């Protein structure tokens, strides 16, 4: 056999065909872990063309340098999609996806501790007629539970290769790779799998439909039978065929089959599920030895505390509070290091390059701007680190479980909790995650309130303001005032979402909320390797995506802030004034620049919020991305003192005074007002762009921007005016 492959491969080598392998599986089957174990960091994340569902793929090199592309499909429970990302996965598998052909091989990842439900999907995929490998994941957990699986028997019964693995322990991964290499190359010849659907009683009812499907593109008899059962059982499955030829004929056949089933007392909706589960239960009974359930598994014991009636919510609050507090305190160390390094880099550039526009742009535009954002990377890394742990341990689902009561009261579904929690990292993936919400009304409502969650781009703004203006006071040695203020900003966003959701569903988004069904996965130890991947991915995405925008905006800003240059006479006048010891307007350069003029234009509107024209510039530029206000301020304050490259932005803000009154520009009250504005306003073009894409209309992003701006203005106005009246203004 090897000789044959060798001669064959020398020919193939000229133009190696990429073998495409799809990973399919239930959510929580550990599919992504298997994907990570197979591909490591050789991953590519893109979008399916035309839609915003993520396409995760990675390359694997087989024998004779044969390339294998591993595609991580969105998680599905069955071949009948309930949401858009499920739709993509199903379309690819059934060969009805316009942008992605069906794969050469499907690896079905199944949670072995939960085999029946996982086999439901696996047997459906077998029936399509695609070559299938079954990867029995979480074998380590099965061993601990004393669960015995007859791998051979299962493979024989389904007639497919079955590979026992544990992605977490990196167990069986090599065997899985070998199986992929072996079967992936067979192409259509690799078709394997026995259909488990056998029911004489129903076969007769299905016969006309089976014939119809065989005449309309489904070759394999088992595939046609499976599809026949599906269109009988599920209205959505029938809808998938509605826009094709002969749909009326099909509807008629389905109608007839349903009537026949009804006449026999079989609920047509359950036709497929019942037959399939009956067969699966039989297979499992023959091949799995399950120890008598003691009823007190580890997860249940942990849940006795973590979702306890009283301890649960308290612990949840403490866990989240600790996370936010530690993001703030731990990240301080690397942040200082990055700040220092960038200051040193700026000085180096100044020494290497002659003074002039280029040096000016590099130091004050590029290094100062990008540096001011890069410095917050540690916090983003910390946030994603904790978020990944919460999700991978299974605790995130418990947060949803505990919080659902409130979500229901808000008219949001419990499924909204995950998109909303994701929005703490960034509203863009959060809004994309709303695709998992089946009810369109719930989905729209979630999209509209998601940007209130404090995303990681706001964190730099909070950190800068808190670090500069909130005193580091400890209360009782436990609570740290800056940490508490940070937590309040996050809470404010949540409260705003609650208020907005209540108002919006009364006047804007009407309709009924549906119930939600969510799996509570067993608690698992997180795998640090996988946590690392997630953090790395997030950090990379932040630096590359935000970095590009910020780099461009920084340079544009530097230009707006530096030009037009004041004429020579004005310069001399100012210099003379300075030499004679008189106070000069240190921002005279930026004031008459393009940016300064823009800021002064909006100053009358934002002054009641406590913002001066310099903050006004920041509000405008931060529309590109919220954290840009930090680089804007860095640029503005650096420009006034060209000799100092490593200006500590915090000190600069603290020392800034209004030239007319001599009062500080920034006070703790101004800082809080500014933070509140950033919590509530939709200062983010990426968010608006993704909303446009998801709702397929400009109506919702425009609406979102306006209503959030009104929220923000009113709140900041109230806080600043009331605060000033109460004497907190200085």
């Amino acid at each position, binding site marked *: 056999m090897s000789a044959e492959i060798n001669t064959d491969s020398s020919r193939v080598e000229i133009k190696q065909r990429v073998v495409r392998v799809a990973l399919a599986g239930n959510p929580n089957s550990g599919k992504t872990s298997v994907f990570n174990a197979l591909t490591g960091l050789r991953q590519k994340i893109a979008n399916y063309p035309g839609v915003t569902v993520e396409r995760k793929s990675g390359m694997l090199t087989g024998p004779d340098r044969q390339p294998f592309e591993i595609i991580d499909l969105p998680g599905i*429970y*069955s071949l*009948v999609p*309930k949401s858009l990302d499920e739709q993509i996965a199903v379309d690819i598998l059934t060969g009805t996806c316009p942008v992605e052909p069906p794969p050469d091989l499907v690896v079905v990842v199944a949670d072995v*501790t*939960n085999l*029946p*439900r996982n086999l*439901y999907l696996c047997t459906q995929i077998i029936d399509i007629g695609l070559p299938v490998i079954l990867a029995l994941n979480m074998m380590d957990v099965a061993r601990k539970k004393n669960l015995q699986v007859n791998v051979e028997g299962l493979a024989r019964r389904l007639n497919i290769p079955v590979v026992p693995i544990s992605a977490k322990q990196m167990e069986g991964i090599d065997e899985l790779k070998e199986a992929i290499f072996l079967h992936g190359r067979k192409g259509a010849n690799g078709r394997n799998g026995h259909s488990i659907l056998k029911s004489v009683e129903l076969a007769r009812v299905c016969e006309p439909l089976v014939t119809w499907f065989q005449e309309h593109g489904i070759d394999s008899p088992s595939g046609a039978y499976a599809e026949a059962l599906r269109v009988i*059982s*599920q209205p*959505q499955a029938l809808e998938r065929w509605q826009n094709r030829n002969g749909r009326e004929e099909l509807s008629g056949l389905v109608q007839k089959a349903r009537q026949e089933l009804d006449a*026999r*007392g*079989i*609920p047509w*909706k*359950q036709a497929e*599920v*019942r037959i399939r*589960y009956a067969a699966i239960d039989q297979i499992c009974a023959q091949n799995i030895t399950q120890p008598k359930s003691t009823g007190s598994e580890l*997860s*249940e014991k942990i*849940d006795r505390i973590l*979702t*306890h*009636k*009283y301890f*649960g*919510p308290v612990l949840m609050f403490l866990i989240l509070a600790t996370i936010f507090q530690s993001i703030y305190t731990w990240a301080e160390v690397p942040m200082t290091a990055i700040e220092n390094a960038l200051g040193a880099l700026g000085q180096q550039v100044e020494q290497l390059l002659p003074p002039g526009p280029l040096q000016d742009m590099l130091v004050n535009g590029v290094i100062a701007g990008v540096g001011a954002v890069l410095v917050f990377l540690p916090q983003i890394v910390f946030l994603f680190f904790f978020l990944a742990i919460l999700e991978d341990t299974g605790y995130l*689902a418990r947060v*949803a*479980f*505990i919080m*659902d*009561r*409130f979500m*229901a009261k808000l008219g949001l579904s*419990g499924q909204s909790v995950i998109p909303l929690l994701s929005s703490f990292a960034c509203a863009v993936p959060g809004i994309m995650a709303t695709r998992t919400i089946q009810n369109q009304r719930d989905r729209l409502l979630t999209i509209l309130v998601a940007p209130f969650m404090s995303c990681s781009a706001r964190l730099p703004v909070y950190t800068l303001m808190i670090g500069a203006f909130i005193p580091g006071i400890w209360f009782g040695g436990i609570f740290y005032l800056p940490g508490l203020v940070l937590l309040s900003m996050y809470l404010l966003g949540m409260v705003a979402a609650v208020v907005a959701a209540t108002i919006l569903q009364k006047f804007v988004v009407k309709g009924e909320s*549906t*119930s*939600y*069904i*969510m*799996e*509570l*996965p*067993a608690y698992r130890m997180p795998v640090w390797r996988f946590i690392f991947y997630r953090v790395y991915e997030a950090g990379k995405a932040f630096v590359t995506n935000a970095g590009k925008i910020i780099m461009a905006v920084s340079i544009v800003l530097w230009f707006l802030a530096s030009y037009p240059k004041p004429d020579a006479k004005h310069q001399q006048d100012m210099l003379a004034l300075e030499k004679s010891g008189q106070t000069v307007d240190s921002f005279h350069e930026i004031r008459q620049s393009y940016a300064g003029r823009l800021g002064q234009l909006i100053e009358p509107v934002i002054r009641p919020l406590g913002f001066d024209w310099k903050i006004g510039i920041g509000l405008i530029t931060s529309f590109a991305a919220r954290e840009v206000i930090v680089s804007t301020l860095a640029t503005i304050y650096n420009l006034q003192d060209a000799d100092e490259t490593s200006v500590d932005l915090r000190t600069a803000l603290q020392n800034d005074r209004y030239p007319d009154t001599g009062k500080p520009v920034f006070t703790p009250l101004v800082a809080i007002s500014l933070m509140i504005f950033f919590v509530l306003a939709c200062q983010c073009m990426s968010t608006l762009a993704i909303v446009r894409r998801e709702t397929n209309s400009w109506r919702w992003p425009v609406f979102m921007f306006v209503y959030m701006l009104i929220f923000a203005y009113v709140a900041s106005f109230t806080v600043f005016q009331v605060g000033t009246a109460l004497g907190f203004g200085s």
Partner: protein
Amino acid sequence: MRTQTTDSSDYVFSLDDLKPGEEAVIAGYQDDIADEMRLLEMGLIIGSIVRLVKIAPFGDPIQIRVRGTDISLRRALAKRILTRPTQLNHDERRN
């Protein structure tokens, strides 16, 4: 095996009536439940044993276990899932 949606010969009550720790057998679904298909695919078919694991801290949703998986769903939905006591039809679900 009877093939009706609900088996009227037994005492039928809703899943929501279970107390934490109690088990019952799925007997059917009331009227049209939008999520019936998802529930069926997750294994809540007639004859499946379901256990109410616990009620969420604030009283809703509930956590149920069916075929080894823990699923949370709201009480409003649970009210429409019909169940029978396990003991009465022990033999029937064994096959």
